[in-house]
C-alpha cells in the first residue's frame, strides 16, 4: 500500500512531540516531511535561558538530533521557511521553491515575539528573544558591550535580563506595569521578586513607558528614551513584551484564525479537515496555550487522529505557573488576585523571603500565589482543580500538605537545597541525581514520565512536590497542566467516578451491567480485557454496587486476593488468622504452634494489628495450614476489613470506662469479610488514653464515661493522619450503625485503592457528616445495605467453592 504524505510546517517542541506520538502508534502510515525555518533540529526552547546564562550549552538542549529524523525516515528541510500552501493541489512551498505534497498537513508554527511599535525598532542591537539565533546575538553582544535594556518584566524578560547580567552586562529591566510578572504574581509577591533580583544586581524601571530607541552614527542603538523625556544608555535592547501566535501562513491561505489558528477538539483546523494544528499557534476553544504540558496533550490527541484511530479529544487544560527565575521559587494558579466576593488567607515573611496567598470563594480554593516556598503548589493546584469544599481544612490550608507529617524524605521541602545523593523518593530509593539524570537523558517533561522512568513519587506520592520542583529546575517544563479529570488507566478515557456511575446506571433495556466484559463493551474500552489496573477496580465496583448479583472474578484480583494469603518477596506466602478483637486462647495458640512445626514455617511474628503472622508458607501448603489452624481468614491480604485493635478496657483496666474489647469483637464480627476500595483498619479504646491507637485508624472508637466517640479517616501509614472527630454516641448499637454506615458510604463512593483518609480528603468531612449525621434515614439505609452485602458471605479459607477460590492454583502441574 502506498503510504500517505504527512507534512509538518514548524520543527518545534509541540510538533515534533506529535510526530513522536504518531510514530509510536502508527510507524508506517506516512512518509513524513518536516520544514523548519531555523537551521537546527528540534531543541528545548524553554532551556534557552540557561544557555544564555552560561549554565548549559546548545548541544545539551537538543531534543531530537539529526540522527533521529534519519532513523525514522523523515525528510527534514531545515532553514526553509514555508511561504505558501496550495490547498487545492495539496502542496506546500518554501521560500526557496522547495515543494512537498501532502495528504495531511500539520501546522506547528509556534509564536512570534511581540515587537513594540516604537521608532528605532529596526536599529542594529535591537532584538527579540525567541530562538537560538537571538540567544547567540545576546551572547556575542555581552562580550563587546556594556549596557543592556530588557523591555518587559515578564518571565522571558527576567530570564533574559538574568542571563545577560550573568554574562557581565549592566542590565536594566523596563516594565510598563506596576509590578513584575503581573500575570503570574500579585503585587506583594512581585515586589518581593523585584527586591531579590535587585540584590543580585539587576536595575528596574517600573511603570516606565518606552517612547523611542535612539541610534548612534554607526546605526546601532545607543539609548532608550521614555515618555517623560529621560534616556538611559543601551548597547543592546531585548524586546520581551510577550508573544503572539504565528498565524501568518495560515491566514494567507485562508484558514480561520482568531488569536491563533482555530482548531476543534481533534486538533483539526475548522476550515480544512486535512490540516491540523498544534502548539502555540493553535487556538483551542479560544485559548492559545504557551506551556509545554497542554501542548504535549494536544500532540497526543492529534497523533491518534493522524493515525486514523479516531479516538481522543482534547478538551482544554487548566494551567498553573511554576517559574524558576534563577533560584527563586514562584508558583501561581487560578484567580490569584482575588476580588470583592473572595476571601484571602495571606502569610508574609518579607525577611525570610516567603509569601503565600490563598484565594477562597464560596468555600472553595480558587487561586494561589506562592513565593519562596512552593512545595505545596501541586497540592493547592489539585484542590483548585477538583473544586472541592475546603471548609473543613481551612485552618490547616495555609500550612500545606507537607506539614502534616510526611515520612520518607527527611522533611526536605526545597529541591534546590538537596544534594544529588539525597534521597527524594523514600519508597523506591530514588535520589535527586537519578531523577535529574533521567530527565536529561530521556528528555522527560511531565511528572507522569518521570514516574514511569524512575518510579520516583510513583508509590505513596508524598514526594510529588519535590519531584515537580526538580523537573522544573532541570527540564524547565511545566509539569502541572494535567487534565481536569484523570483517566482510570491507559485503557480508557473515563475516570473512576464515571465508570462507577456507568455501573450504577441501568442500561437502556432496564438491565444492569454485571460483568467486567459488559463494562468494557458499554464503555468502549481500548483493550480487549483491560489491564492490571482497571480490572481489579471494575471487579470491585461491580461487587460493591450489585452485591449478590455481580459475580466475583478471581482472575481480576491481585494474587493476594486470589490465593487468600500475602505473597512475599521470595514467592512464599504469609498466613494471618483472625483473632477477634485481638484475643486468643490456649487452644488456638496450640494449633498454630503445631502447624508451624508440621509445615516448617520459618517465621512467626506478632503483627501491629494484634494478630499472629506466619511467614514463609509454601503455596502448596496454604490449604493445609488453614485447615489445621482452624481459625477464620484474617483477610490480612485483602482490600477489606483487616483488624479491630482493642485495649483491655473496663473489664481489667483500672482506668477503663467502657468495655472496649467486647465492642471491638462485636465490630469485627459485624464487619469481617467486608471488601472495600482499600484496606480498612479499626480500633477501639476504652478511655481517652487511647492505648489501641484509635486516632490513626479508618474508624477509631474511643470510650468515654458517657458513651463513645467515633473518629474517621485516620491513617498510620505513609503520611500519619490523625482521624477526624465524626460524632459521639451513647450505645454500642449506635457505634455499629454509625461506623458501618460510614464504611458503606466509603465502599459506595471511594475510588479503588483510595484509603478513607484520601476519600474523605476528596469529598470533605462535611459531606460525610451530612450523609451520616444529618440524614437519619440515609444512615440506616447505608447500614442496612452493608449488612445485606455481608450476609452469608463465605470464609474463603474454608468455603472454597462459594468464595470462588480456584484450588488448582495450589497444585503445580508436574513433569514426570
Amino acid at each position, binding site marked *: 500500500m502506498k503510504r500517505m504524505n504527512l507534512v509538518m510546517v514548524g520543527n518545534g517542541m509541540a510538533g515534533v512531540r506529535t510526530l513522536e506520538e504518531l510514530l509510536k502508534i502508527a510507524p508506517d502510515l506516512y512518509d513524513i516531511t518536516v520544514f523548519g525555518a531555523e537551521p537546527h533540529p528540534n531543541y528545548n526552547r524553554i532551556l534557552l535561558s540557561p544557555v544564555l546564562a552560561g549554565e548549559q550549552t546548545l548541544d545539551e538542549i537538543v531534543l531530537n538530533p539529526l540522527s533521529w529524523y534519519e532513523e525514522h525516515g523523515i525528510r527534514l528541510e531545515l532553514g526553509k521557511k514555508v511561504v505558501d500552501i496550495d490547498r487545492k493541489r495539496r502542496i506546500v512551498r518554501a521560500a526557496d521553491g522547495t515543494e512537498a505534497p501532502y495528504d495531511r498537513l500539520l501546522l506547528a508554527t509556534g509564536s512570534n515575539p511581540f515587537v513594540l511599535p516604537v521608532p528605532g525598532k529596526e536599529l542594529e542591537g535591537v532584538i527579540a528573544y525567541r530562538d537560538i539565533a537571538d540567544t547567540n546575538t545576546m551572547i556575542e553582544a555581552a562580550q563587546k558591550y556594556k549596557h543592556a535594556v530588557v523591555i518587559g518584566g515578564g518571565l522571558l524578560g527576567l530570564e533574559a535580563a538574568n542571563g545577560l547580567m550573568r554574562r557581565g552586562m549592566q542590565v536594566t529591566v523596563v516594565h510598563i506595569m506596576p509590578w513584575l510578572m503581573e500575570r503570574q504574581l500579585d503585587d506583594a509577591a512581585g515586589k518581593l521578586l523585584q527586591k531579590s533580583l535587585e540584590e543580585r544586581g539587576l536595575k528596574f524601571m517600573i511603570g516606565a513607558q518606552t517612547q523611542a530607541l535612539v541610534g548612534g552614527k554607526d546605526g546601532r542603538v545607543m539609548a532608550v528614551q521614555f515618555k517623560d523625556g529621560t534616556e538611559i544608555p543601551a548597547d543592546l535592547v531585548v524586546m520581551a513584551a510577550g508573544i503572539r501566535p504565528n498565524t501568518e501562513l495560515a491566514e494567507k491561505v485562508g484558514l480561520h484564525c482568531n488569536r491563533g489558528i482555530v482548531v476543534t477538539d481533534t486538533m483539526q483546523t475548522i476550515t480544512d479537515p486535512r490540516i491540523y494544528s498544534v502548539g502555540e499557534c493553535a487556538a483551542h476553544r479560544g485559548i492559545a496555550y504557551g506551556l509545554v504540558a497542554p501542548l504535549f496533550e494536544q500532540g497526543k490527541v492529534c497523533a491518534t487522529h493522524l493515525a486514523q484511530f479516531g479516538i481522543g479529544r482534547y478538551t482544554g487544560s487548566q494551567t498553573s505557573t511554576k517559574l524558576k527565575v534563577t533560584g527563586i521559587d514562584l508558583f501561581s494558579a487560578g484567580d490569584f488576585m482575588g476580588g470583592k466576593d473572595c476571601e484571602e488567607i495571606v502569610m508574609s515573611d518579607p525577611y525570610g523571603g516567603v509569601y503565600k496567598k490563598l484565594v477562597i470563594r464560596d468555600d472553595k480554593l480558587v487561586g494561589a500565589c506562592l513565593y519562596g516556598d512552593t512545595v505545596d503548589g501541586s497540592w493547592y493546584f489539585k484542590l483548585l482543580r477538583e473544586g472541592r469544599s475546603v471548609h473543613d481544612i481551612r485552618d490547616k490550608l495555609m500550612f500545606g500538605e507537607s506539614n502534616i507529617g510526611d515520612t520518607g524524605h527527611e522533611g526536605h521541602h526545597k529541591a534546590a537545597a538537596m544534594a544529588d545523593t539525597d534521597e527524594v523518593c523514600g519508597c523506591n530509593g530514588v535520589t535527586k541525581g537519578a531523577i535529574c539524570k533521567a530527565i536529561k537523558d530521556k528528555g522527560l517533561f511531565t511528572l507522569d514520565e518521570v514516574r514511569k522512568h524512575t518510579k520516583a513519587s510513583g508509590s505513596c506520592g508524598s514526594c510529588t512536590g519535590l519531584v515537580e520542583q526538580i523537573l522544573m529546575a532541570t527540564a524547565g517544563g511545566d509539569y502541572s497542566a494535567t487534565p481536569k479529570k484523570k483517566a482510570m488507566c491507559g485503557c480508557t478515557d473515563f475516570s473512576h467516578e464515571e465508570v462507577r456511575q456507568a455501573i450504577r446506571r441501568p442500561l437502556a433495556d432496564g438491565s444492569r451491567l454485571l460483568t467486567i466484559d459488559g463494562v468494557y463493551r458499554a464503555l468502549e474500552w481500548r483493550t480487549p480485557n483491560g489491564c492490571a489496573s482497571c480490572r481489579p477496580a471494575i471487579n470491585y465496583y461491580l461487587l460493591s454496587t450489585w452485591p449478590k448479583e455481580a459475580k466475583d472474578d478471581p482472575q481480576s484480583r491481585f494474587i493476594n486476593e486470589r490465593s487468600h494469603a500475602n505473597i512475599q518477596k521470595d514467592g512464599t506466602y504469609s498466613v494471618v488468622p483472625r483473632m477477634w478483637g485481638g484475643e486468643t486462647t490456649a487452644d488456638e495458640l496450640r494449633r498454630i504452634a503445631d502447624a508451624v512445626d508440621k509445615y516448617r514455617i520459618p517465621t512467626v511474628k506478632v503483627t501491629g494489628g494484634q494478630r499472629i503472622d506466619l511467614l514463609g508458607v509454601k503455596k502448596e501448603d496454604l490449604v493445609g495450614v488453614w485447615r489445621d489452624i482452624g481459625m477464620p481468614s484474617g483477610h490480612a491480604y485483602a482490600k477489606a476489613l483487616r483488624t479491630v485493635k482493642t485495649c483491655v478496657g473496663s473489664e481489667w483496666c483500672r482506668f477503663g470506662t467502657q468495655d472496649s474489647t467486647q465492642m471491638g469483637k462485636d465490630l469485627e464480627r459485624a464487619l469481617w469479610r467486608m471488601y472495600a476500595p482499600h484496606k480498612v483498619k479499626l480500633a477501639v479504646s476504652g478511655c481517652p488514653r487511647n492505648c489501641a491507637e484509635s486516632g490513626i485508624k479508618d474508624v477509631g472508637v474511643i470510650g468515654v464515661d458517657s458513651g463513645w466517640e467515633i473518629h474517621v479517616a485516620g491513617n498510620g501509614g505513609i503520611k500519619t493522619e490523625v482521624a477526624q472527630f465524626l460524632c459521639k454516641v451513647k450505645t454500642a448499637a449506635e457505634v455499629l450503625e454509625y461506623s458501618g454506615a460510614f464504611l458503606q458510604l466509603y465502599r459506595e463512593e471511594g475510588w479503588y485503592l483510595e484509603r478513607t483518609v484520601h476519600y474523605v480528603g476528596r469529598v470533605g468531612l462535611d459531606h460525610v457528616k451530612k450523609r451520616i449525621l444529618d440524614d437519619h434515614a440515609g444512615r440506616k439505609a447505608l447500614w442496612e445495605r452493608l449488612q445485606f452485602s455481608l450476609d452469608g458471605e463465605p470464609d474463603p479459607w474454608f468455603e472454597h467453592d462459594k468464595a470462588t477460590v480456584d484450588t488448582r492454583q495450589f497444585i503445580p502441574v508436574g*513433569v514426570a
Partner: protein
Amino acid sequence: MKHVWKAICHVEDIPVLGARRVARQCGTDVAVFRNAQDKVFALLDRCPHKGGPLSQGIVFGESVACPLHNWTIGLDDGCAKAPDAGCTPRFSVKVENGLVHLDLEELNSIALDEARAAA
C-alpha cells in the same frame, strides 16, 4: 531443530486469563499462561526484575503483570514493556487436541541452575 513434545496438561486446566505452574525435576518452575482467546504461552516463572513468580500475576491481552512490583511482561517474548528492560526465557508451546505440550529439550536445558522458588 526438531521438537520433542511433552504433554503437560489440558488447556482447560489453565484458568482463562490465568496461569499454572509447571514443576520440573530441577530449576525454576515454568509458567503456562492462557489468554482470553485460549492462546497458550510458556515462560520461565521468574520476573527479570526481582524474580517474582509471573504465574501469580494478572494476565491481560498478551501480557502479565508481575505480582511483586507490577512490571508488565510480554507473554510472547518474555520481555518487559518499556521503560522497564529485561527478559525472562520463553518456552516453545504446542497445543494439539486441547493438550498443551512443552519441548522436552527446553525443559531439560533452560535455567536449570537456579533452585525452584518456594512458591
